[in-house]
């Protein structure tokens, strides 16, 4: 019961987050529809297509009439970078595309202090907001007249700073002095703050002033660095390396683990799958094992593999071997079971021996299935190696982003994620290319 209540609470939180994201999602969809409308207008001025599908009157529901629109893809990718740049104040983007950034520069506000005798006096606070990564001194403030003296304060963008306004005043808080108004608007200790144009100022429970400069809409580099920052990290790391290893070494180690683990998995898994497809004894023997191990995510094996084999290469390769093994075994099994019985019959009545049927009929016939399995297995292996490196590794793409995140080097994290995506995508493209070359008969039986 308790569990259900707490889960219901979590669900509410999740749904609340989804709801708060809804306006952005709706806005994005409207943007897509807007570009579609614009494209439809533009298309009328272009040379119309004259191919067969241009003559189709029924396109809604005809899957073959729906091909990926290159223009949409280009706009989509460009938009991601534009949004990324706009929300990070990227220098690659003209300034008018930036969303409002955090305030930097100088500003001032006045506060009204009330002395213990009930008299009031105004003083000015000069605030200098400096961007992260630089330093600045507090501006000099003329003391001014009255018992409350002017103050100067330096604040880093996206941070806030407390001002003990009374340090230089004639009455201190201990004397009973307090701030009663900011920029002429009355405030209470611990109450809501006052917008002074470039910052929000509120009076804390202890009577000091808390100055929070406006953060604008842009992301702080520690959450999301600008594209050029990620690029310069890529350039820097590919020449200087990261954590005593070059970028090529990090990626190379990850790839090495994937390839060795996958090959071992294939070398064992494919004969295992053949045996399961050709012999009822092997099928009965391994079916329970394979069917049980298949749904266990390889990631769940990481703790056990670390306990047994340590965090070195052997442990990782065992893990990837296990990730690839079941997928390849099942692919080979279905490749064998999928052979049309008439092909086997034909080969027998042409005088082929069992071994010849294996070599010339069953193996070639199973290759398309094995290639499909290999593509899936390579994808799973790549995902697993990155996750395993997140847990423990000396080198590797996953280790790189994990260590970088501990040092809040978000630019390296994002660079790593992009590289992991690029490598994963390249692996899949390579497998598809190999498939086209090696099993051209796939799907045309």
């Amino acid at each position, binding site marked *: 019961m308790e569990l259900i209540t707490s889960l219901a609470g979590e669900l509410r939180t999740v749904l609340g987050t989804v709801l708060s994201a809804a306006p952005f999602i709706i806005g994005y969809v409207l943007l897509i529809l807007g570009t579609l409308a614009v494209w439809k207008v533009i298309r009328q001025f272009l040379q119309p297509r004259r191919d067969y599908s241009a003559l189709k009157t029924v396109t809604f529901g005809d899957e073959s009439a729906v091909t990926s629109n290159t223009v949409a893809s280009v706009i989509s990718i460009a938009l991601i970078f534009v949004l990324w740049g706009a929300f990070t104040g990227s220098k690659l983007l003209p300034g008018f595309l930036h969303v409002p950034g955090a305030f930097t520069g100088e500003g001032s506000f006045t506060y009204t202090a009330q002395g213990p005798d009930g008299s009031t006096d105004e003083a000015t606070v000069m605030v200098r907001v400096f961007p992260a990564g630089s330093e600045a001194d507090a501006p000099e403030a003329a003391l001014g007249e009255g018992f409350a003296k002017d103050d100067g304060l330096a604040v880093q963008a996206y941070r806030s700073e407390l001002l003990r306004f009374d340090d230089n005043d004639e009455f201190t808080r201990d004397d009973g002095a307090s701030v009663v108004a900011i920029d002429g608007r009355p405030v209470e200790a611990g109450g809501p703050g006052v917008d002074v144009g470039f910052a929000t100022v509120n009076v804390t429970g202890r009577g000091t002033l808390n100055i929070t400069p406006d953060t604008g809409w842009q992301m702080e580099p520690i959450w999301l660095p600008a594209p050029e920052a990620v690029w310069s990290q890529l350039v820097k790391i590919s020449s200087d390396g990261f954590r005593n290893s070059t970028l090529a070494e990090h990626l190379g180690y990850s790839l090495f683990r994937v390839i060795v683990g996958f090959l071992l998995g294939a070398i064992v898994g494919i004969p295992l799958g053949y045996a399961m497809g050709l012999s009822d004894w092997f099928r009965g023997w391994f079916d329970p094992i394979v069917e049980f191990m298949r749904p266990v995510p390889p990631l769940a094996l990481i703790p056990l593999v670390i306990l047994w084999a340590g965090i070195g290469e052997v442990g990782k390769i065992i893990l990837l071997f296990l990730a690839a093994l079941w997928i390849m075994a099942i692919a080979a099994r279905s490749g064998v079971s999928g052979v049309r019985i008439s092909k086997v019959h034909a080969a027998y*009545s*042409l005088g082929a021996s069992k071994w010849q049927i294996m070599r010339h009929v069953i193996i070639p016939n199973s*290759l398309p299935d094995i290639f499909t399995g290999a593509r899936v297995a390579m994808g799973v292996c790549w995902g697993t190696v990155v996750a395993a490196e997140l847990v423990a590794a000396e080198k590797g793409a996953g280790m790189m982003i994990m260590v970088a995140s501990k040092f809040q080097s978000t630019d390296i994290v994002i660079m790593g994620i992009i590289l992991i995506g690029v490598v994963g995508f390249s692996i899949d493209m390579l497998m598809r290319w190999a498939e086209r070359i090696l099993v051209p008969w796939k799907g045309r039986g």
Partner: protein
Amino acid sequence: MSDLDIQKLSMRFDLPGGGSVQALKDVTLTLKEGELLSVLGPSGCGKTTLLNIVAGFLAPTEGTITLGGKKVTGPSAERGMVFQQGALFEWMDVRDNVSFGPRMRGQKPSQYRDEVNHLLDVVGLGDFKEKAIYELSGGMQQRVALARCLANHPDVILMDEPLGALDALTREKMQGLVLKLWKETGKTIILITHSVEEALLLGERLLVMAPRPGRIHKEYRLPFAETGVTQDLRQVKKTAEFGAVREEILGMIWDMEEEIMGRQEGA
């Protein structure tokens, strides 16, 4: 003489849910070398089962089959088979498909090359020797299947509805080709078909089978295959004699189908 002798062949097997099926009962038949037999019957009459037993893919529960005095116990190269479709090897080109049998026997390319080329010319695929199987039309694929079977020099050719998946026009051309190959090679052929016309045109002998249990219902000896070798098949089909036999057999099969339907409704 490699006569095919089928003696009192019966086939009965258990069903998974209990009960059993008598697929064939007491089928006896002798086929002389060079005879062309077509087998016709409603679905479920056991004609494919019969062919699979002759090919050696199934073992009968009773009875024996001998070919040239030798008992049939399993598949072998002396009984070649042509399937309806999908029995070609897509990973080989046309030439490698046709030379499959000789290659499996360990022959060198120099030993089979000329004959394979000749056979491909005979079936009209001389220009398609290096094509991939999936690049060919259905009719062309069946030509490859015929050539592949012939290249292996079987004593008997078993055809399981080889033209069933083809369109009417291609089918007619292929029927002519089958007759031509039969006459030229002098092979014993058993042809299973759904089409009464095809069975009449191609069958020197025609077997009509009846279902439940699968058995021989009636046998005919027909002149049309002989005349079809020299004459146009469409002219043969127009003759009064052809029409009369066709009507007779169609009626026979109709009656069987009606009986099956009636039995099912009664059950």
